[in-house]
């Protein structure tokens, strides 16, 4: 029981640490961001609190020290500096090490812990006192169609005389939802001139409510004629809301009509904090800026609270259980195929109807089971941010990593297997791609380089691109190296694409010196193989002096694929449908006409083909008319000759087991409706094997 709780704590802590890392990197860029400081503090506080609850006393004690420092930061007593972020990142790694070693009694190096704590205390300048507990989280309101409204409420001067108390209206408004109130006092006269019974104050109010604009209007219904009232919706908090930053301060003031476009441009031209300048230039009253700032904060808080509520409505399930579920669904799909086949053979209308119903349900079940395992790739992206940061420091380069499409979802197993190849590619971009700052400036580029990581859906695949604005690939160097290594003959004429693809050849590395970051010449071929094992493909394009783009295309899931079922003799094979372009007939005459060169004429184009019957040494004679399944692999069209094309098939992939692990050209197997086994062809590898055999 205790163990179970400890395990749950560890899982939570790992998640918090990942979040912490992201927050710290964000903090490095925006050291004044109070929200981020708050997030760091809360993460530390939670780790400390639950850590001591479940007996991880060393972690709790260590985290307490870091938390104390961030409490000081939170209270404005300590500035965020690069050193603080570095130390806290180190502390984060140390907590992780302590967690990793917690079960076997290890628990991280005490000396390292000591050094980090000393460093932090040194920064703080004294022995810090115990941290205060954070404020209790505000009670959660159930968000339904939430929206945020901006209200300007300016009562008439004589509103008090008529017996109305605007404060009761504000009170009513607060009952509608989360409400921020800023009184505008800028129009108050001095004591000598003030009419004590007149109303000079007016308000900017920000309300987030699920009750709609009319509910707000109802609050003011009795004073509507006696006041100036403006209600605007400024944000809608839907399920699909982008967690992007809220509007800029200037934009809010502009929308409110507190400032003109011209004034805004003048302020922006001075490159300072907008609010400060607007006030010091006398364009705006502080109260107006204050209320715009409150609006910004209000919307941010509402969004955060909403995210937190959503997070709380999820449950934690061990990954193995999901894998088991997906496996069971796979079996189910197989059995369902058998059922459909049997029903069709029996010609029993009732059985066919049931089989169709089962087929529909199975398809839904399959989709939702696979969906559960889908994870956004963003968490992997944020891990790379740390990698880029550390590497660029190590190499003395200035590199910024930007990401896009972090919400793109991929199967959990795919994401896990993609990690290493991506790390390698990013390392390559940083080490070989981006130049040193001096070289960049000399080439007329900004001193800091950019690595852009993007993910986007494309059909049943996801394309991940890594762009850098570095030196680009050196075609001559690649060529020279390939000739030196004997990969190509000295006279070879290659297109750019063919030339770039040489870097994936085994043992190829053009780095002049070997660094700890990348390159012992074992890199890119391994990367390519890893991507191909995921049934993906990789593509390089590059412009010398401008940069390099590497595109990795990966299928959404590894569990089930759409494939084309073909037959050779008695055996069935599966070809991934995504790779198949078309099927054409191949008659015996055609074969004779090509004089054993294995080339087919398809619409005035010569397409090489591989007779699979020969390749797999299957006994028997081929039929009079065979079929060529034409596939497209890495931009080249190649045909595979089979006896017969059966049709599309939902293929549940089963691995072949250890004994057959090294069989070339086969990536797995599947069970057919009649219970027999069909092999799934590994098209890129088959191609390689045949090319190698010919060379």
């Amino acid at each position, binding site marked *: 029981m205790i163990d179970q709780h400890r395990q749950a704590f560890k899982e939570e802590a790992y998640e918090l640490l990942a979040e912490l890392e992201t927050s710290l990197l964000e903090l490095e860029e925006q050291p004044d961001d109070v929200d981020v400081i708050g997030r760091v503090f809360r993460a530390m506080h939670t780790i400390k609190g639950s850590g001591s609850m479940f007996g991880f006393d060393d972690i709790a004690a260590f985290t307490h020290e870091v938390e104390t420092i961030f409490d000081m930061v939170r209270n404005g007593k300590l500035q965020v500096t690069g050193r603080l972020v570095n130390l806290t990142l180190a502390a984060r790694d140390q907590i992780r090490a302590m967690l990793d070693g917690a079960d076997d009694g290890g628990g991280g190096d005490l000396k390292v812990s000591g050094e980090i704590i000393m460093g932090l205390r040194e920064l703080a300048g004294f022995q810090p006192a115990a941290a205060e507990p954070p404020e209790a989280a505000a009670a959660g309101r159930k968000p339904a169609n939430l929206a945020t409204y901006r209200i300007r409420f300016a009562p008439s001067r004589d509103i008090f005389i008529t017996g109305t108390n605007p404060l009761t209206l504000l009170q009513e408004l607060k009952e509608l939802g989360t409400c921020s109130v800023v009184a505008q006092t800028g129009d108050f006269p001095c004591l000598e001139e003030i009419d004590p019974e007149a109303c000079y104050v007016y308000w900017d*109010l920000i309300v987030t409510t699920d009750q709609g604009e009319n509910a707000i209007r109802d609050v003011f219904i009795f004073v509507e004629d006696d006041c100036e009232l403006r209600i605007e919706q400024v944000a809608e908090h839907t399920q699909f809301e982008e967690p992007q930053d809220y509007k800029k301060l200037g934009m809010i003031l502009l929308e409110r009509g507190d400032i003109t476009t011209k004034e805004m441009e003048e302020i922006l031209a001075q490159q300072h904090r907008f609010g400060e300048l607007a006030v010091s230039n006398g364009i705006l009253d502080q109260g107006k800026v204050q209320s715009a700032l409150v609006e910004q904060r209000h919307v941010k808080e509402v969004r955060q609270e909403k995210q937190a509520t959503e997070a709380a409505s999820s449950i934690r399930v061990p990954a193995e259980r999901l894998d088991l579920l997906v496996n069971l669904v796979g079996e189910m799909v197989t059995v369902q195929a058998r059922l459909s086949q049997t029903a069709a053979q029996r010609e029993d209308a009732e059985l066919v109807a049931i089989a169709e119903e089962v087929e529909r349900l199975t398809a839904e079940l399959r989709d939702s089971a696979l969906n559960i395992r889908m994870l956004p790739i963003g968490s992997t992206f944020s891990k790379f941010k740390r990698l880029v940061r550390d590497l660029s420091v190590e190499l003395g380069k200035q590199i910024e990593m930007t990401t896009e499409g972090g919400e793109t979802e991929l199967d959990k197993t795919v994401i896990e297997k993609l990690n290493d190849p991506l790390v390698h590619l990013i390392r390559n971009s940083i080490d070989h791609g981006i130049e040193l700052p001096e070289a960049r400036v000399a080439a007329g580029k900004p001193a800091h380089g950019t690595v852009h990581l993007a993910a986007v859906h494309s059909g049943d695949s996801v394309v991940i691109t890594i762009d850098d604005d570095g030196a680009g690939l050196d075609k001559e160097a690649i060529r020279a190296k390939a000739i030196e290594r004997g990969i190509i003959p000295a006279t070879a004429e290659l297109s750019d694409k063919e030339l770039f693809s040489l870097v994936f050849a085994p043992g190829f590395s053009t780095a002049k010196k070997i660094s700890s970051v990348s390159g012992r010449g074992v890199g890119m071929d391994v990367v390519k193989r890893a991507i191909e094992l995921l049934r993906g493909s990789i593509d390089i394009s590059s412009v010398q002096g401008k940069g390099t783009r590497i595109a990795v295309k990966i299928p959404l899931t590894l569990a089930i694929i759409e494939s084309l079922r073909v037959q050779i003799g008695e055996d069935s094979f599966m070809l991934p449908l995504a790779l198949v372009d078309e099927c054409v007939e191949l008659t015996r005459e055609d074969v004779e006409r090509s004089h054993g060169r294995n080339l087919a004429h398809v619409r005035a184009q010569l397409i090489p083909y591989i007779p699979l019957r020969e390749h797999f040494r299957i006994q028997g004679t081929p039929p009079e008319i065979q079929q060529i399944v034409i596939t497209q692999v890495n931009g080249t069209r190649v045909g595979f000759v089979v006896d017969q094309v059966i049709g599309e098939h939902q293929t549940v992939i089963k691995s072949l087991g250890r004994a057959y692990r090294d069989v070339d050209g086969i990536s797995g197997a599947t069970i057919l409706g009649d219970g027999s086994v069909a092999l799934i062809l590994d098209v890129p590898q088959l191609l390689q094997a045949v090319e190698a055999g010919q060379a």
Partner: protein
Amino acid sequence: MDEFKLECRQDPESRGKQILKISGGVTIGDAGGFRQALLAALEAASELQLDLSEMTGIDLTGLQLLCAAHQSAVRGGKWLHITDGGNLTFREMAAGAGFCRHTGCARDTSYSCIWVGGEQ
């Protein structure tokens, strides 16, 4: 609400400093009297301390007057400040009406805005 009461005295420790203690609840009915008292106290002193520790309520007219008094003090080169002795009623009223802020208004040239800081 308790009865509104004003009590003005000279600070024994500092010459030229008046302490105006406001107790009970400030309502629109008291606003005229409150304004007169503030004017008189400001007239008499270079420093005015408003003691709100025993205030049991304040409406918008009262809050407006406090703000106006501060403005007059700044204009006259005098110093006006508030002590509330941790009076939660006053703090909640001021926060609820949206008066609390991070920095004072444009006329707060002496950076002594009475609404800055406080319990926020």
